[in-house]
Every structure is written in structure tokens, then in C-alpha cells.
């Protein structure tokens, strides 16, 4: 097989990898940063890094989704440095979504952005390592073992970090919601918060 053919095959596999996981990586990046454009960049950087590290995918990786989220975690830690590494490629990516029609971005954008920002503020009260474990396991659905592998830490450490997160979040929630009937999640809501807002006269 010529190297050209091999590369075509690899690209095809990456196309599939992207189709399967780009939205997961985007959701993870968006929830970690609360910034849509930045999340778009993180997705691109994650796949550029994945391509760079594709030997690893070949030799070691069992769970591509966990692997990609691990790369995304590194990109989130070192966004500027990774962006420099892929400066040329990034400069060729469209800055804004060039296809704004077709349903996407339906609306809830602003409210969602507010909710996401509130969540990011809550995340900020956690330490970096706790935050990473929390977003990977609770928001992006990795198993404890997968998260441990993704972060290169023992599974016991995942457990202990999560239990620290739980204690902290309980304190925060209790502080914010004293005697009222239980309100879930730091007053965050999955619903649009329109009813809290005054409509313009």
C-alpha cells in the first residue's frame, strides 16, 4: 500500500472519529469555558493534536472518546501553547461559523451562555485538578476508570477528588439555598430563564 493510500485511510478514520466525537468535545470545552468561539478552537486544536499523536491512537488507545477528552483537557490547560503549535492550521480555519443558516445556534444562545457562565463561576471555586475530574466524569460522562486513564492518575485519586468536590459543592449549595425548599444546582436551570427577566415595555 502506498503511503498516499495509507494516509487517505487515516484521514477517513479521522473523519469518522470527528463525526463521532466532535460534539462531545465541543460540549466539554463549552461547559469548561462558557465561551463558544473558544470552544470551537478547543475542538479544532484537540483534533489537530489527536492527528499529531495518532501513533498513540494506533498503539495504545482503547477508548477514543476518553482519549480525545484527555487531549481536550490538556488543550484547555495550555490553550495558548497548543494554539502556537498549530498556528498555521488555526489561521486557516474560519473564524466565525460560515454557515449560519440551517437551524443551528437556535436562539437559546444567550440564556444558555448566562447559565454556562454561572456554572463556570461555580467551577472556579474548585481547584484545577478537581475541576478536571468533575467535568470529565459528571458532565462529559467518562467512567472513573476512563477518567483515571485520561488524566494519568490512579482511580483512587479520581474517587477522592470527586468526594472533595462533592463536599465543596454541598457547602456552596447550602450557603446559597438556606431554608428554602430544595433548589437544585446553585439555582442553575436547564430551562430558559426568560421568566426571571422583565420584558421590555
Amino acid at each position: 500500500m502506498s503511503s498516499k493510500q495509507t494516509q487517505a485511510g487515516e484521514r477517513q478514520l479521522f473523519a469518522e472519529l470527528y463525526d463521532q466525537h466532535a460534539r462531545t468535545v465541543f460540549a466539554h470545552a463549552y461547559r469548561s469555558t462558557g465561551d463558544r468561539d473558544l470552544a470551537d478552537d478547543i475542538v479544532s486544536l484537540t483534533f489537530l493534536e489527536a492527528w499529531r499523536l495518532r501513533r498513540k491512537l494506533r498503539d495504545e488507545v482503547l477508548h477514543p472518546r476518553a482519549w480525545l477528552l484527555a487531549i481536550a483537557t490538556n488543550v484547555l490547560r495550555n490553550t495558548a501553547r497548543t494554539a502556537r503549535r498549530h498556528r498555521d492550521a488555526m489561521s486557516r480555519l474560519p473564524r466565525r461559523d460560515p454557515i449560519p443558516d440551517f437551524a443551528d445556534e437556535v436562539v437559546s444562545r444567550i440564556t444558555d451562555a448566562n447559565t454556562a457562565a454561572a456554572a463556570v463561576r461555580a467551577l472556579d471555586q474548585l481547584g484545577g485538578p478537581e475541576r478536571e475530574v468533575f467535568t470529565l466524569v459528571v458532565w462529559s460522562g467518562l467512567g472513573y476508570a476512563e477518567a483515571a486513564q485520561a488524566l494519568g492518575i490512579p482511580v483512587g485519586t479520581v474517587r477522592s477528588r470527586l468526594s472533595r468536590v462533592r463536599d465543596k459543592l454541598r457547602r456552596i449549595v447550602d450557603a446559597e439555598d438556606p431554608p428554602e425548599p430544595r433548589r437544585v444546582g446553585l439555582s442553575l436551570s436547564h430551562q430558559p430563564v426568560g421568566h426571571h427577566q422583565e420584558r421590555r415595555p
Partner: protein
Amino acid sequence: MSNTRTDHSEWNEHSERRELARLLPPPPHPEPSPSQLALRRDILLAEFARPRPFSALTARWRGLVAVTAVATAAAITAVTLAPDPSSSQDPRPPATAASVDLLDRIAKVAYAQPQPPAQDSQFTYLRTVSHTRTMTEDTDGSMAGADTTSNTERWTAVDGGRAGLVRREGVDTPLPAIAPGSLNSPTYRLLATLPTDPEALLKLVYADSRLNHGSGSASTTGADHEAFIAIGDLLRSSVAPPQVDSALYRAAARIPGVVTVDDSVDAAGRHGVAVARVEDGLRFEWIFDRTTLGLLGTRTVLVKDGLWGGPGDEVESTAVLAQGIVGALGEAVPVQGAESSH
């Protein structure tokens, strides 16, 4: 799987995860549209193809990744097996009898359409007009809405093997070749290979939507709604063989929560009857000509008060003005003589 110790620790993991998700639920995130994702993907793939020193990889790679994919599927299944009480989606009743009946009639009409003689050298053509309402926050914190209208023509190679073209408001932008395509970035050839058995087709659509929106994915949308959206995207943004269109309609009739809307209007002002699904305060409608039962377009409407308006306010709409197979980039299919259905 039957090991009790494992079950026990999995259960602990599950309940701890639930407790954490309750304390700080995953915030909603915007959904990048399939077309947008496809574009970025194609640009990245073009990037990978740029000449640069790299070592040739062996064919072993392909085999291993295939194994990997199976392993992931297994891992995902393991997560999915447990019921997911943290899911915010209520179980929905099955599609209403009226919607099943309407979709059945629509599917029959779609099936009877002439089979286009598509050659790989040709292009699918799609002409649409769309309105999108975007809200921006003013400096004083109030919200202002603005509508944008976009006239779009899009050419995609039948097999995706050559570059395509999008002409938006008269401005041409080349689109990268996408062969062989995927469910999220389909080519005519790819669509022609889809199962025409609605059950099998729906399974395929769900396999994709579960991956990103099912239990354990932390998605706030849910696999059912994502499947509805995915089918809607296929219907309005691609040209498919009649038997596939027909199967897509029959597949949609199997999605819980599907209803009908007596009167809706597309982006070209054409009224019709709609098949719809409500999710998170928004109703997503597919609009059909009352007489011919052909697809007119799609629309998203608010069903309750929100920052960007009140019930009935339109968020975005599309009208499919023309579609078909053409011989070359830039060649158009005449706009259908519309406005008959008012």
C-alpha cells in the same frame, strides 16, 4: 458484568455521579449544526493532507482502530445499561396517531417520486431561503432581536468525490470534497446506501444520536430529540433517493413525542401542515404542502415566554425552493411554482 463486586462499585459510582450532577448540573450548550461541524471537519482533514514530513503507518492501524471502535461501543453500552435518573428528559408518549397517519401519507407520496438518474459526475442541487432570529444583549442589559435572511444554493458532488459549492447571497464559496460522506454530512451516494426499512434506519440514526445525546452523555437534549433533528436536517438539506426519503418519514413516526401542527408557514411564506416535536420550550416543525404533501421547509417556534420573545414567535425558518440533480456546479434547478397552498 455479573460480578457482584463490580456491580456494587458501579452502582456506587453511578449514585455518586448522580449526586454530583444534582449539585452542579451540566449547563446547556449550543449545538453546532451538522453542516457547520462537517465544514470544520473537512477543513481539518484538508489540513491533515497538507504535505509535511510524516511516517507512513502500517495497515495494522486500521484493524486496531476498528477494534477500538468496538471497545468504545461496549463501554458506552455498559454506561447505557443502567437507567439514568439524572436525565432531565421526561419520557414522552409515542408519536400521536395523527402524526403517524400524516407521516404515512407523506412517506407514500415521497416513495412515488421519480427516481433521479444520479451519476457520480453530477451534483445534487438545493436552493433554500432561511430566516434566523438572533438576540444580542445591549449595553444596558436589554435584549434586541435581529432577523437575518439568507438565500442559499448548494451543490454537492453525487459521490462527494469532488469539491462542491455554496452560493450565499450571490457570493460563491467552494466546499471541500466530502466523499464518502456521513450521516451528518451526507452525499447522495451515501444516502442511497441507507436501509429503507424504517426500523433499521431509525436504529442507525439513534446510534449516532445516542452517542452524543444519550444517557451518560450529559446532553440536555436527549437522543429522541436529536434523532428528530437529525432526520429533519437530512430531509431539508440533502437530496436523497425517494425510497430513502420515504423511509426517513416512516422512521420519524417512531420517535416519541412527535405531534402535528395544523397550520405553519415556511420562510417563503407558504402555509402548510406540520409534523413537529417540542423540546426545551421550542417547537421544531417540518412543514408540508397540504395538497401535494411535499416538504416545504422547516421552522422553529417558541412555545413559552423567553428572553427572545413569547409563544408563537419564530426563531428560525427555512424554505426549500428547489432541489434535484444537475450536471455541473453553478447549474440550477428551476424554482418550483409555489404559492399554490395558501
